């Protein structure tokens, strides 16, 4: 019987073999990309291909740290949030994007070696059923599969999912390094689609994390008139927990907070067109109303003015979901969330347009430098 390390080596071999032998499409069709699109992709792809279920964001946080500009001094708070402070003086402005992604956590191991799971965040569980699985451990990932249901259970939603790592017994699963508390996802890959579009899992909110990094890299620090705090937060998907810790730490100090997070778009033939119809590829979005916050109209107007003054594409809309900024509002801080349109949110095949990543980064930079 192979141990966990052997299995991980085998997984690596498989990936290599598949890369070499598959007749599949190229993943990054970027020959004609502009410099800005190429920059966005270069930052986004490694973040998307890092794993970080809520509460286990370490790999993503380390990836963000590696991508920070060399001058940036980061610190990690006790909650796990990553902070970078730029500039001096009041009013303090916070921009915050989250590191975590939806997934599962192991809650137990059955006698037959299959893993019982609980969900971390909200999503359609059938999208994981009968698909490859990865159990994330400190020593590396252990491959497995999400079990399919019984054929007689014919409705869209499956029973609670389990994972088979091929162990056959609880003892063997544990010998491979599986234990309760570990997180579980499925393998993911950043892949380019036609034009400037791309697909992958966990664009929510790696795009926000990417935009903050690009904004920092391009920031004219001499132009700052006040302090701007960039935060990459944890445990957003399970209740804005990292943001709550950051908000409590800052209390009434900030004037504004800009949550940099997904604008779930109805730009798809299978969505209702009642609201959230912000096409991908037409720029960042002022997320003026969602399930957690309402931006005061005067602030929306100001944001639109900032965008116009800098020539940045900005849409205005309303969608569903909550955002990290809403944890700051009880302290008297105004939440002005800025999103980017996303198709098929919280699915393994989310779709974005890289032009919106560029627009979002430019919007963050404009807010930091001029508002």
């Amino acid at each position, binding site marked *: 019987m192979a141990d966990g390390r052997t299995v991980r080596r*085998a997984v690596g071999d498989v990936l290599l073999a598949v890369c070499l032998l598959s007749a599949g499409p190229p993943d990054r069709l970027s020959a004609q990309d502009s410099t800005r699109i190429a920059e966005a992709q270069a930052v986004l792809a490694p973040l998307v291909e890092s794993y970080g279920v809520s509460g286990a964001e370490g790999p993503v946080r380390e990836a963000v740290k590696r991508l920070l500009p060399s001058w940036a001094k980061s610190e990690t708070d006790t909650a796990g949030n990553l902070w970078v402070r730029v500039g001096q003086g009041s009013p303090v402005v916070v921009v915050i994007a989250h590191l975590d992604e939806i997934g599962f956590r192991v809650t137990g191991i059955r006698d037959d070696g299959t893993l019982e799971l609980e*969900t971390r*965040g909200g999503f359609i569980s059938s999208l994981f059923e009968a698909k490859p699985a990865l159990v994330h451990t400190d020593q590396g990932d252990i491959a497995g599969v999400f079990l399919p249901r019984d054929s007689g259970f014919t409705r869209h939603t499956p*029973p609670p999912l389990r994972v088979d790592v091929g162990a056959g017994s609880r003892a063997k699963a544990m010998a491979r390094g599986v234990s309760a508390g570990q997180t579980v996802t499925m393998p993911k890959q950043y892949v380019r689609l036609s034009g400037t579009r791309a697909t992958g899992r966990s664009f929510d909110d790696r795009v926000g994390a990417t935009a903050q990094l690009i904004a920092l890299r391009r920031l004219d620090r001499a132009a700052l008139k006040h302090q701007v705090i960039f935060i990459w937060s944890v445990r*957003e*998907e399970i209740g804005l927990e990292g943001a709550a810790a950051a908000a409590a730490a800052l209390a009434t100090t900030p004037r504004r907070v800009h949550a940099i997070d997904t604008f779930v778009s109805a730009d*798809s033939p299978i969505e209702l067109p009642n609201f959230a119809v912000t096409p991908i590829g037409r720029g960042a979005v002022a997320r003026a109303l969602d399930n957690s916050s309402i931006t005061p109209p005067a602030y929306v107007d100001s944001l639109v003015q900032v965008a116009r003054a800098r020539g940045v594409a900005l849409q205005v809309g309303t969608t569903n979901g909550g955002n990290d900024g809403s944890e700051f509002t009880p302290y008297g801080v105004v939440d002005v969330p800025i999103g980017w349109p996303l198709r098929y949110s*919280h699915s393994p095949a989310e779709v974005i347009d890289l032009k919106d990543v560029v627009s979002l980064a430019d919007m963050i930079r404009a807010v930091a430098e001029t508002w």
Partner: protein
Amino acid sequence: MIGGKRGVRSRHIGSHPEGWARYDTVQKHTREYTLQRRVAPGPSFRMGKTAAAFLLLLSALPPVRLFAQGDLDRLALRFASMTAVTGLEQAMVDSLRALFPGSTRDHVGNVTLTLGQGSPKRLFTCPLDEVGYVVGNILPDGFLLLRRVGGTGRTASPLFDQQLEGHRVTVFGARGAVPGVVAVKSTHLTRGRSAPGTPDPVFTVDNAYVDVGATSAAEAQGLGIAVLAPVSLAKRPQLYGERLLAAPVAGRRAACAALAAAVQAKPKVKGTVVVAFTVQSLYTSNAGLASVKALLGPFDDIKTAALPARYADTAVETVALADADRLVREILQWMEGR
């Protein structure tokens, strides 16, 4: 962005360890095959001491041709990463022809290779094809609609199409493979829009909108996509446990890999053995195998490679490559007339 249920702890009700294609179904599918691994009822890939001793004995027998386990694993992974929608197997056929110089492709698409000469004249086959999809229509906004292909007489599970939803697919266009995804409703936008007790129907191919990133039909066509272009789930085979291979149609592909590995071991065949990788086994009349028999027969004996699979007809159909090892040995023995 936060959405949907938070921290809902799983409870396990009514799920069957063998998945929606239960093991008795798998056995029914493979009963026609005469040379396959015999297994106890229920999927178990564990090898007992007796079996291990038997294998040791087998390996000590001099006439058995040599093949490397690593070669078999590579072939199985390679075949499992390929797509061969029934009736549209051209790409995989081309790969097999490159793998076996001297092989031929008949007009139906089968790849055949003749080993040895004289009598008896025997046939060993392996079906290549899989249930899949073709582009049925291209919409003005660049989305593609699909039609399922295959499955007649071996009806796809009611949950078969649902595996597409929200996942990456590959469209095999005239200019090469094009990545796309099948649209799914965003979790956040479904909230509060259906009352408790609302019907929960399975996803079918008629709900499948493929998004390749195109914004118009012309852009999609510019990628080489046209009606009838084959479409499949993106193939990403996964090895787990002790040489377990998970992939769509992993059973068929590992069985074909076993046959290919046996050929590569250069057996000293008894009489003539025709090796045929056949097409269209999942469409109406199994025209591929019928053509081989008509064109190259008659045969004194016919065998088909098959392996037992767990989680059959799903994206994680699983075979034990140890079973494939044994199948290679059995094929070699049969070819050499032992």
